[in-house]
């Protein structure tokens, strides 16, 4: 799957921007804060209806603008050309149009345009609380299986309802009567077990993708593993009804505890993933370098898994992902981006030069763009390939007026 053209209107720093993209590596370089990341965010909105940073849609609308709009023209999705447009109006919410037709539900788009993001926030995956890891899990599974996301949303709703019943009885001497709580307990067991079953099966499969990814970016012979810490220890072959049974007995066991706390204490909302390198638990004992490599391996494994599962290569978004990488890993990764393993990718960085050494921007498959601020709005200027210059016009055009300018790094 290739994103050909991206259009942003009133999106963060962008007033009105059109970006033409190449099928392989696309570099967006420019000073910090000019609006490079916004371009990646816009792609994320088109593919998954939201940003990859925790952000309120309201703040994405450019100041004084009534709404924002992003549109992507894709090749190789279902038909030859797919035009996806997302509009957000603060008082009315988001709407997605595919080839002009509005979707009934936003989530219908998820999984159709797979996307994987590398960003500085990835360190939270291995370093911070369990919710980061559950979010990672949910992101992959939602893109891989639309029903998963549907179950997840239903589960959240049922749990909220059940929590309300428990909350009402928190201060009472006895727990809620069966007639009030039991239908909700049954509901969370049924849907929750489905969620856990999918996660369990996925994690068993994902293991080999992680090993593969780790080997690709680090020559060290440590073996990465993921342990799934949920209501019980399950085998790959554990069935959904066995999980239901375990779920049911856990709820029974925690009954009094749930009454005291006034909330649901059993279920996939409490799942945790434990990452290890051989026997070493990364979160507690991993070095800086091990954290970084593990997080990268997780994202690369996500990419490889989605490629297999969806039979198309996701778009890879690398937001300032090379800033802290050493030269060796940077090279390994750039080689990967140019290989067949990765399809189309977009990179944001402050400078062009470290990439120009490895990536031949003269080839028509790659492209580089310079992002600047002009009159308070972001401007994306494509830098012509030398090959293009020779064949079309003299180098007196845009290529000379927009040189790569490390000077501008001093801004902000």
């Amino acid at each position: 799957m290739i994103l050909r053209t991206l259009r942003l209107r009133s999106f963060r720093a962008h007033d009105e921007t059109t970006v033409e993209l190449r099928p392989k590596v696309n570099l967006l370089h420019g000073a910090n804060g000019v609006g490079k990341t916004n371009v990646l965010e816009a792609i994320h909105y088109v593919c998954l209806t939201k940003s990859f940073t925790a952000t309120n849609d309201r703040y994405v609308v450019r100041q004084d603008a009534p709404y924002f709009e992003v549109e992507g023209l894709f090749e190789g999705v279902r038909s030859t050309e797919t035009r996806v447009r997302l509009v957000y109006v603060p008082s009315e919410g988001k709407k997605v149009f595919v080839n002009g037709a509005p979707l009934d539900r936003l989530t219908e788009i998820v999984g159709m345009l797979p996307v994987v993001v590398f960003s500085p926030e990835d360190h939270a995956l291995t370093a911070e609380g369990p919710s980061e890891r559950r979010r990672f899990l949910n992101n992959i599974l939602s893109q891989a299986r639309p029903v998963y996301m549907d179950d997840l949303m239903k589960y959240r709703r049922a749990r909220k309802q059940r929590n309300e019943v428990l909350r009402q009885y928190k201060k009472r001497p006895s727990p809620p009567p069966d007639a009030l709580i039991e239908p909700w307990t049954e509901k969370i067991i049924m849907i929750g077990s489905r969620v856990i079953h999918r996660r369990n099966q996925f994690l068993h499969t994902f293991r080999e993708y992680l090993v593969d990814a780790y080997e690709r970016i680090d020559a060290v012979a440590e073996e990465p593993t993921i342990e799934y810490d949920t209501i019980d220890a399950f085998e790959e072959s554990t069935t959904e009804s066995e999980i239901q049974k375990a779920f049911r007995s856990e709820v029974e066991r925690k009954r009094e505890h749930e009454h005291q706390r006034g909330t649901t204490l059993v279920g996939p909302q409490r799942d945790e993933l434990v990452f290890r390198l051989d026997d070493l638990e990364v979160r507690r004992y991993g070095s800086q370098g091990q954290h970084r490599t593990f997080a990268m391996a997780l994202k690369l494994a996500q990419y490889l898994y989605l490629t297999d599962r969806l039979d198309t290569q996701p778009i890879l978004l690398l937001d300032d992902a090379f800033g802290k990488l050493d030269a060796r890993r940077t090279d390994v990764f750039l080689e990967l981006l140019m290989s067949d393993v990765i399809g189309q990718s977009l990179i944001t960085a402050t400078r062009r030069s470290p990439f120009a050494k490895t990536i031949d921007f003269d080839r028509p498959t790659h492209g580089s763009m310079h992002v600047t601020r002009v009159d308070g709005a972001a401007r994306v200027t494509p830098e012509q390939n030398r090959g293009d210059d020779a064949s079309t016009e003299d180098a007196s055009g845009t290529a000379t007026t927009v040189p790569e300018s490390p000077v501008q790094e001093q801004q902000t």
Partner: protein
Amino acid sequence: MQFTSESVEALVEQFTKLPTIGRKTAQRLVNFVLKMPREEVEEIARALIAVKDQVQRCSTCFVVADRDPCPICSSEKRDRSTICVVEESSDLLAIERTGEYRGLYHVLGGVISPLDGVGPDDLRIRELARRVDPSFADSEAANVSAADAREAAESGEAGPPEVGDEPHAGDGAPAPDDADGADGAGEDEEAEVEEVILAVNPNVEGDTTAYYISQLLEPMGVPVTRIARGLPIGGDLEYADEATLSRALEGRGAV
């Protein structure tokens, strides 16, 4: 936003009380009303009052109707052995439009939703149980109502449950206290109920309500089936097209 006219602002506020109407839409509606001829505005106002004053509920199936019992419950041509359970009167109309269903109905008045302060006893579930089995006693149902639970919440630290944008049980007439209407169309031998079809919406609250009802009716030995499996996920019964609804009615399955 400030209005120069207080009555405009007042009407905007009134409109926003309606479900799915935000301030922006309310302002649009007010602008429209301002341009309407006075007679048309009066018609709307009269229709609003009439709906409250003249419309009543059928004491058997609780559909909104101009008379009690309603035309469906009093019709000789309907199959009295089947009851189709719906959330609201509008769902009943949607199913009637398909022309496929010849049985009777039962309007619950919403779905179980603790977040909206709606428990099983706030719906007409006991009334349904009594229609299926006239010997059904209240004690067999949930002894604890959600009203009880609300009391508990208020006496505790936490405030009353939040009421959502769309109150499910708040559609007017309260359910009768006694079983006075439960015998339906008269003193004649009522035909036995042989099937209960649950046509609640296929969402989390609808599923849970269906589960609750099927558990309650199970000891009565009457098969309980559920339609709406053919409906799109998250789809609303009221807005489903007739063909889809007809297929869903045919393909109903056990709960």
